[in-house]
């Protein structure tokens, strides 16, 4: 078992602590959904920022720790680190959206997704938190750019998933034309459907630019490190499938009969594809990118 001592040193304890903050923030946002109490949503946002700051610190501690024990690549490599980083990015994205738009209702989905990711990282035996030496295949500076760009895109797709769900709930309950404003409660807290629709598009295309960049960087890395720029490795292939899903999303607008509802569905399904690409592939199909089985990875 991992001793408490190590988890302080390598920063993983602080990630677990941040989980408490994010769950608290989630609880606040959840209450906010049913009461519409602005004070509660503000407090939740404050708690979330506190959690984010703790995570930032944890991240720095972990990087320094890795460096100290002789590992020169940042702690982004294994399943634990990538889960934690995903939670980090999606929270960061939400904080940005929240600063620019008055969009408290999104908080509950974002904190939920972030909590699940962090809880999985902290408690699942599939994701040990120990900082392991990096296998030779991953000792490269491409790694940082590759993972960062991809996780920014995953964060954006996570947000578009949340927005898509909200949009679908809203449309199913009220229809497109806001006829029943008086209903009150949860639905009245959401921005009007067309605004959600627009934000889905904006978040998706933001994610798509980063996804494209991330895939290209990955290919460039593969070209400089392995036998070529593209090997149809399962993870690569699934990233292409993800990419095609979102390319489909941006083109769906140009065909008749693909209204906001279908677009929202693509955003929801798209995120399922992202999750499969990110976790499913590792857990089900072995390949170059296997996070799931530390140590058992072949040298390539």
């Amino acid at each position, binding site marked *: 078992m991992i001793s408490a001592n190590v988890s302080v040193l390598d920063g993983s304890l602080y990630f677990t602590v941040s989980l408490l903050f994010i769950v608290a923030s989630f609880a606040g946002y959840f209450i906010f959904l049913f009461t519409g109490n602005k004070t509660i949503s503000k407090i939740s946002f404050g708690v979330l920022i506190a959690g984010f700051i703790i995570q930032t610190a944890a991240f720095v501690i972990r990087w320094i720790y890795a460096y100290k024990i*002789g590992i020169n690549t940042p702690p982004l490599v294994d399943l634990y680190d990538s889960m934690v980083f995903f939670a980090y990015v999606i929270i960061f994205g939400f904080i940005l959206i929240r600063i620019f738009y008055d969009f408290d209702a999104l908080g509950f989905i974002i904190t939920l997704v972030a909590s699940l990711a962090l809880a999985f990282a902290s408690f699942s035996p599939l994701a040990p938190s120990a900082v*392991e*030496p990096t*296998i*030779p*295949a991953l*000792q*490269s500076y491409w790694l940082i750019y590759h993972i960062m760009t991809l996780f920014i895109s995953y964060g954006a797709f996570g947000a578009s998933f949340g927005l898509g769900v909200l949009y679908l709930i809203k449309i199913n309950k009220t229809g497109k034309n806001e006829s029943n404003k008086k209903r009150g409660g949860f639905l009245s807290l959401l921005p*009007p459907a*067309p*605004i959600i*629709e*627009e934000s889905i*598009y*904006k978040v998706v*295309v*933001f994610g*798509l*630019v980063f996804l*494209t*960049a991330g895939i*290209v960087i990955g*290919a*460039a890395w593969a*070209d*400089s*490190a*392995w*036998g*070529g*720029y*593209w090997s*149809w490795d*399962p993870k690569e*292939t*699934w990233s*292409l*499938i993800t990419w*095609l*899903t979102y*390319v*489909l999303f941006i*083109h*769906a607008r*140009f*065909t008749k009969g693909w209204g906001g509802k279908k677009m929202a569905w693509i955003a929801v399904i798209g995120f399922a594809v992202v999750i499969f690409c990110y976790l499913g*592939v590792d857990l089900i*199909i072995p390949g170059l990118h296997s996070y799931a089985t530390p*140590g058992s990875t*072949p*040298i*390539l």
Partner: protein
Amino acid sequence: MIMFSKLYKFFSSVKLAIFLFIAIAALSMVGTFINQADTASQYKTIFGPQVYHILYWLGFLDIYGSWYFIGLAVLLVINLITASASILPHTFKTVFGPYPSFDETAAKKSPKAIYEIIESKKDVHEITKVLNSKLGKPFSEKELYYSKNSIFRLSPFIAHFSVIIIIIGVFLNFHYGFRSYTNIKVGEKTNISYLSKNHKPIKLPFTLSLDNYRTLYYKDGIPKSYISKISIIKNHVAVATKNIKVNHPFTYGGITIYQASYGHYKPTAAKLSIVSLKNRKSEKIVYAEFGKLYDTGINNIKFRFIPYKHPKKDEIPFFIELSNNKILKFYVLPYKKHSMPLIFAKYQNTVFLYNGVKNYYYSGVEITKNAYTSVIWAGSIILIIALFFSFFFNHTETWVKLTPLKDGKKTRIEILAVPKKKFESFYNKFNKLIAGIKKDLTGE
């Protein structure tokens, strides 16, 4: 002709594009669940011969090289070209003119359009001044036509063009390049490599020798790096020597050599030292393979190294048979200085020391000719930039029509705006803009 235009419509439709996205994604998926490019015998053991034949027939065992996968990629290119060609004239017009008039646009009744009427007592000159201050410089003087970010209408074309470039690059690479692998024993040479897609041997334009191989470890025993010292030999002369490791390949003459794996072959020979007790310095080393006859170099004694068919437990599983049919057993002597005990057999004054098996380390390298990758990188970079500009720079067009009203005192101002994308934020902004214009023109 009708036939032709129908075909053209089909090939340029976004519906076809959506079908292609889904089809390519679905086929790619199949390829991640069935291992690609294994050998036929591997497939037969995994799936059984019947299923293997069906999968083979469907092309599912080399799906990314199958005719229908390549066919879909070709269709995608045709789709991209025809779709771009069919809207390019229109887009060029919106960017470079001649711009459509107010009436033409109004007649089109675009669902995105937004229309507003204001009446003002101010004279035309003043009205124009107010409008220009809010909307920017009009593109044409005759009519009040304002256009913002029009140049970015070209970015989707550039995005599509770059996708075509990437696909072309991939095809060129596929056609003119190759990917192969080979294993080289330490100290040996080869000029044969095996194609990754079908394991067929090819001849390399040079000979590769593995001068040395080693693995470096972290303190706790996890491998840190795998290093092969590789020489390239041309016409019996080494023209280049380089250490390669994972993430640090070596390129020579357009061909790149990557460290991919390592291992050792099953030992085939035992290392025996043969020492005469009379002359301790007379050590002779023989790499003895089972069953072969070797000379000890001492008194013309010849020997064979032979395994026991059914070795007993705790017994050394081999023995020496001399040419005079004498059998020598091996004995174990614990030996302090070495961690390994001494294993020996003795005949008169001759001692056979067993020094372990001879290991042949090999290094697995991938040998790749990555032709035309620069085409792919160029396409990719253009794609990323074009995506960025497509998404974040939206074109909006605004037409204003001024008509003097009958009483001669007032002017009717009709404002018609068409955004490229139907965004709520555009309409909000536009409403604010109209409110501002109204205030300046009517004082309301």
